[in-house]
């Protein structure tokens, strides 16, 4: 019997064959004497085979632990070197995920995984299953419908696949970043919001009302954030308006203007974090 990848299995398979033989013989032979003779001879065969297998395994383990014979040592160290090389290649393949793009060969082509993150926080992953044919085509994917996949494919898929992939990366990472900021606002700074945060699925149109307290006064502002460029995580247009019948005192008008600027330059949840800090500072100054 040839050595297969899993030797134990070949022995077991052999065992099973022998055992069925024993059972068959048991049924066939009428004479109990004859049957037992067959049984015992087959049984002996089975037992001897098992004994030799156990011995071999024990020997192998001993060799693996303490390579005594020089020939075997060379074989084993060569084997170990190949194994080490393989582990290294496997590790590098896994490490591709850190570039934001990883992939696995399929029977049709390749399944590319696009990973997203926002300022260090790792977020969702998406995949695009490509069929390598002329023309190149997408077999299936997990890209959300509001990402302009068709547009990007039409532009780059056939002529520059790298550009196609990295462009998708841009869109997906930007979307993931905007979504993350909106989620963080709802999760950690709900106390500031005077009403629900309104957002679209692309998270590129956000609208919310928030109250700010400073030096004993409180005002409500309405903010509208527009991200016209789908590959950015900071808004392209911001309007902050005062909610209320009364006119805004000058100092508060300055506040309103500064908020508009803040939303343009800082991540959404970070802006509110700075509000929290300022309120704390304010409170500490008062008391």
């Amino acid at each position: 019997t040839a050595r297969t990848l899993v030797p134990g299995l070949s022995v077991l398979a052999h065992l099973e064959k022998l055992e069925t033989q024993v059972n068959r013989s048991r049924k066939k032979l009428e004479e109990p004497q004859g049957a037992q003779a067959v049984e015992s001879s087959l049984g002996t065969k089975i037992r001897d085979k098992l004994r030799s297998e156990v011995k071999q395994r024990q020997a192998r383990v001993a060799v693996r632990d303490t390579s005594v014979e020089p020939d075997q040592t060379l074989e084993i160290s060569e084997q170990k070197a190949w194994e080490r090389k393989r582990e290294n290649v496997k590790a590098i393949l896994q490490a591709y995920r850190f570039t934001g793009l990883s992939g696995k060969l399929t029977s049709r082509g390749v399944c590319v995984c696009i990973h997203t993150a926002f300022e260090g926080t790792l977020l969702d992953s998406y995949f695009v299953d490509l069929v390598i044919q002329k023309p190149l085509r997408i077999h299936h994917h997990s890209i959300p419908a509001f990402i302009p996949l068709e547009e990007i494919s039409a532009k780059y898929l056939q002529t520059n696949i790298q550009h196609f992939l990295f462009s998708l990366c841009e869109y997906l990472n930007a979307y993931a970043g905007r979504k993350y900021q909106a989620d963080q606002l709802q999760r950690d700074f709900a106390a500031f919001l005077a009403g629900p945060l309104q957002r679209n699925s692309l998270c590129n149109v956000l609208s919310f009302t928030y109250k700010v307290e400073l030096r004993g006064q409180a005002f409500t502002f309405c903010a509208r954030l527009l991200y016209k460029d789908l590959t950015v995580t900071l808004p392209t247009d911001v309007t902050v308006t005062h909610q209320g019948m009364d006119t805004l005192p000058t100092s508060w008008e300055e506040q309103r203007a500064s908020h508009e600027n803040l939303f343009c330059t800082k991540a959404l949840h970070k802006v509110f974090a700075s509000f929290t800090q300022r309120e704390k500072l304010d409170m500490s100054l008062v008391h």
Partner: protein
Amino acid sequence: MDSELAEVRALEAEIAVLRPACEEPPAPGGDAASVRKSFPEIYQSDSEGWESSKDLRSNLGHLESELLFLSTLTGISIRNYSKKTETLTSPEMAEKSIKKVLQRHRLSGTCHMISFQLEFQILEVQNKENLSSVITDLNIIMEPTTTYSELSEFVSRAEERRDLFMFFRSLHFFVEWCEYRKRTFKHFKEFDPLEDLERHVTWFELVIVWRIQTDEEGKVVPKLDLLTKVPRQALELDKKGVVETAAVGFRALLSVLGIEAALESLLSVLCMEHGGQSPQ
């Protein structure tokens, strides 16, 4: 007869004992057990056991070709990677069933003519509800720094934000633009209008400065500017103020025609002025 029967029974008993010793040990669970949302397990571990070296090498060959394919597909070639894992525990964390793992990664490779070396840390926090992974530190070393001074811009931004993916995205687009710039210059260099101009008095110099910059979001943008070096005499003769508006005019040309066409137009104008040939 009885003795034979006894022998068979004895054999059966011995077989029953020897059998389990020959069965394959259960495959070890290992690290692969944690399947995370962010990084789906796209890799299956090979079966354990004593492989023949032929199988091992063929498996290795298959993996290496997969690696080559990935590096061609992405344009990024990872040469080396290593990681260290440290589990941080404290009795308070154990109580709340919070598990923290700190991973230290080291990655190096190339993207065309640029080589990079990264060291970063990822903190994984697992509590009852979810698993979060955050890059807590990022260090990037790039080469060559002198040829591509614009690189340091987005490197420091990426490090500040610990935005690993932005770094690779920007790197890709940066390299793409560099290649395009090289090709464009090569194309125009083959046709050299200055040869013709030098026959006449050199009235002025036109310098095209082509920078590749990255903005706040890590987007790579080419910036072209036309600089003129004109002797005062020439300026005095320039009644229409063409030289003054040259830079602005060029920028307008860029936005309308794109880089290649704008450069071509500029050069054709120069050549036609001096009766030379226009570029192909």
